[in-house]
C-alpha cells in the first residue's frame, strides 16, 4: 500500500499518453460490458415471465408460416385477452437499399394490442381499417422518404406474386404512427391484411406470427406452454416467447451472437494488449536509470517487479472501471434503443466482475515482460545508461 503512491505517480508521468491509453482501455471495456450483456441476453433462453405480450412463431423457422385457423384456438386459451398477427412481406420501395419492414396486419387488433403506438391524424385508424389499399407508416419512415398523407406508395414484391401475375403493389398513405412522439427503432410499414390475403397468388390465410395479449401476465410461462402444446402434434407446431425473446430470435438469424461478440472482443483486447504493452515498454525504457536509483536506495528486485507490474495492472483496472461505469450509465438507454432489434438487455454486476477479472489478467499479461526486465536490471549498468 505504501508503494501505491509511487505506482500512481509513475503512471501519470506523461499525463496525455496515460489518459489516451486509459481512454482506449475504457472504451474496450465499455464495448466488452455492452456486448457481453447483449450476448448474455441471447443466451438466457426463453424467458416469458411476467410479460403482457407473447409472440407465437413456427417452431422450426421464422420463415415458416402459421395457418390462420390457429387464431380461434389460441383465443380459446384462458388468459389470452387479445390476438393479432404480422406477416413478413419483403418488397422493395424504388430500390433495394431502401430497406424497411413491411407487414400486412389487421388494423384494429394490431393497434389494440399496441397501445403504445399513436396514430395521426385522428381518423387514420378508421380509414386504415376501412380502406383496402390503405397503409400507415412509422413517422421516421415518412420523414425519411418525404411521404405525406394521400401519397400513393408503390412497392415491388420480391416474394408474393399477385393474382394477376404482377409484383406491383400500391398503397395509399392514410396515417403515421409513433411511440411517445418518436420513431421506432425498427420502423414499420403496415398495410391491410385482407387486401394482401385477397391479392396474393399463394400463401393465403397464413401469417408469420401471432401476437397475444395476456390478462394474467404472471401466467405467461404457463400460457406459452399451453399454446405450444395445442399445436405440438399438428402440421404447424409453434414456439411461443416474449416479445424480447422474439426480437432476439430474429436478430439471431444474423449469426451466432455469442461467437460474433467473442470475435469482436478478441480483436479489441488483442489491440489493447499491443497498444498498452507498447506504452508500458516505452515507459520502462524511459526510466531505466530511475529504477536503478530505486534499487540503489534498497528496493529489492521483487519490489521493483511489483511496482512495474502494478503500473500495468492499475492502468488496465482504472480503464476497466471507467468502461464499466460507462456501461452502467449507457446500458439502460442503449437497451431501450436496441430492444426493437436485439431485445432488451441488462448490464449486471456479474458482467462487471467479469470485466474486472479480465482487466486484471490483461494487466498482468501486459506488465509481465516489462516487470521481468525491470527486475533483471543490474544497478551499475542501468545507472550508466
Amino acid at each position, binding site marked *: 500500500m505504501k508503494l501505491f503512491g509511487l505506482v500512481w505517480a*509513475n503512471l501519470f508521468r506523461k499525463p496525455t499518453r496515460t489518459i489516451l491509453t486509459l481512454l482506449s482501455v475504457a472504451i474496450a471495456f465499455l464495448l466488452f460490458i455492452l456486448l457481453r450483456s447483449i450476448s448474455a441476453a441471447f443466451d438466457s433462453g426463453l424467458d416469458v415471465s411476467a410479460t403482457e405480450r407473447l409472440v407465437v412463431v413456427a417452431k422450426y423457422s421464422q420463415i415458416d408460416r402459421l395457418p390462420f385457423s390457429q387464431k380461434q384456438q389460441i383465443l380459446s386459451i384462458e388468459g389470452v385477452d387479445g390476438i393479432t398477427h404480422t406477416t413478413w412481406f419483403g418488397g422493395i420501395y424504388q430500390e433495394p437499399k431502401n430497406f424497411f419492414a413491411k407487414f400486412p396486419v389487421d388494423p384494429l387488433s394490431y393497434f389494440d394490442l399496441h397501445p403504445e403506438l399513436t396514430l395521426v391524424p385522428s381518423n387514420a385508424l378508421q380509414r386504415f381499417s376501412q380502406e383496402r389499399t390503405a397503409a400507415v407508416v412509422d413517422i421516421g419512415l415518412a420523414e425519411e422518404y418525404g411521404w405525406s398523407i394521400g401519397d400513393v406508395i408503390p412497392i415491388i414484391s420480391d416474394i408474393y406474386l399477385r393474382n394477376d401475375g404482377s409484383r406491383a403493389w400500391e398503397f395509399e398513405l392514410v396515417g403515421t404512427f409513433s411511440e411517445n412522439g418518436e420513431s421506432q427503432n425498427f420502423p414499420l410499414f403496415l398495410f391491410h391484411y385482407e387486401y394482401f390475403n385477397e391479392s396474393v397468388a399463394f400463401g393465403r390465410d397464413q401469417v408469420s406470427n401471432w401476437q397475444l395479449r395476456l390478462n394474467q401476465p404472471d401466467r405467461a410461462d404457463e400460457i406459452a406452454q399451453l399454446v405450444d402444446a395445442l399445436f405440438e402434434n399438428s402440421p404447424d407446431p409453434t414456439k411461443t416467447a416474449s416479445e424480447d425473446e422474439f426480437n432476439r430470435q430474429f436478430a439471431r438469424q444474423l449469426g451466432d451472437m455469442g461467437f460474433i461478440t467473442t470475435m469482436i472482443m478478441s480483436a479489441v483486447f488483442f489491440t489493447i494488449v499491443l497498444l498498452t504493452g507498447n506504452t508500458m515498454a516505452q515507459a520502462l525504457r524511459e526510466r531505466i536509470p*530511475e529504477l536503478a536509483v530505486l534499487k540503489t*536506495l534498497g*528496493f529489492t528486485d521483487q519490489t521493483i517487479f511489483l511496482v512495474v507490474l502494478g503500473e500495468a495492472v492499475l492502468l488496465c483496472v482504472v480503464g476497466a472501471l471507467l468502461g464499466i461505469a460507462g456501461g452502467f450509465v449507457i446500458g439502460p438507454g442503449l437497451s431501450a434503443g436496441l430492444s426493437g432489434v436485439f431485445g432488451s438487455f441488462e448490464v449486471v454486476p456479474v458482467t462487471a466482475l467479469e470485466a474486472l477479472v479480465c482487466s486484471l489478467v490483461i494487466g498482468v499479461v501486459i506488465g509481465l515482460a516489462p516487470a521481468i526486465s525491470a527486475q533483471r536490471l543490474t544497478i551499475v549498468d542501468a545507472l550508466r545508461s
Partner: protein
Amino acid sequence: MVAAVACEKVEKQYTKGKEIVEVLAGIDLSIEHGEFLALMGPSGSGKTTLLNLIGGLDQPSAGSIFVSGKNLTEMKAKALAKWRSENVGFVFQFYNLLPVLTAQRNVELPLLLTNLSRKQRQKNAATALEIVGLQDRAKHKPSELSGGQQQRVAIARAIVADPSLLVCDEPTGDLDRETADQILGLLQTLNKDHGKTIIMVTHDPRAADRAEHILYMDKGKLVSGSGVAV
C-alpha cells in the same frame, strides 16, 4: 575498533566480448569512521567501480569488502538491498531524483522500505530537508528546482534513513563553482556535525581539497595520497 570500510585485495573484472577488462587490481584500503575521503584519478581509473563496490551496488570478482565489519561479498542480493537501505546514502552527479515526485516525496523514498508510519516518514523527510536548507521547497518537483537545490534534495534523500556512510559520485560535477562550494560545505557539515563517513569521487581538485584525505587511483590501483591505503 572496526574500520568504517575495509577493502582486502579487491579485484573487479569485466568481460567485453572475448576480452577480459581488469578494472580494479587488488585494492587494499581502510577508512575510519567519520572520515571524509576524496577519490581522484583519471577517467577509467576505477574510482566509480570502487565506490559502487563499497556502496554494495556491485560485487567484486575477488577479495572482500567490509563495511562496519559486515562482509558485503558474502551477502545475497536481497540482503544487500536491505543493508544498503539502512547503512548507505548515495549522492550522484546528476541528482537522479524521480521527476514525478515532489522534493518531500523523493526524500521519503528510502523510508518506504521501513516500518515507519506515514506521519513519521513525512516528519523525518522534513527534518532532512531542513538540514539541507530546503524546507521551503518541499512541495516542488525536481523540474521546479535549480541544479544545486536538486543536489541538496538528493543529499537529504541520502541522509534521511540516517546511514553511517555516504558515497558521493561527482556530487559537484554538474554544478557551477559557487553552488558546488555550497554542496561541499554541506557535505563537510554532515561529516563534522553529524559524524557521517563520506567517500567522494571527484575530478575537481578544489572539491577534493574539502576532504580530510585524498586517494589517487590509476589503472585500477591506488597509487598515492593522504588516505590510509594499506
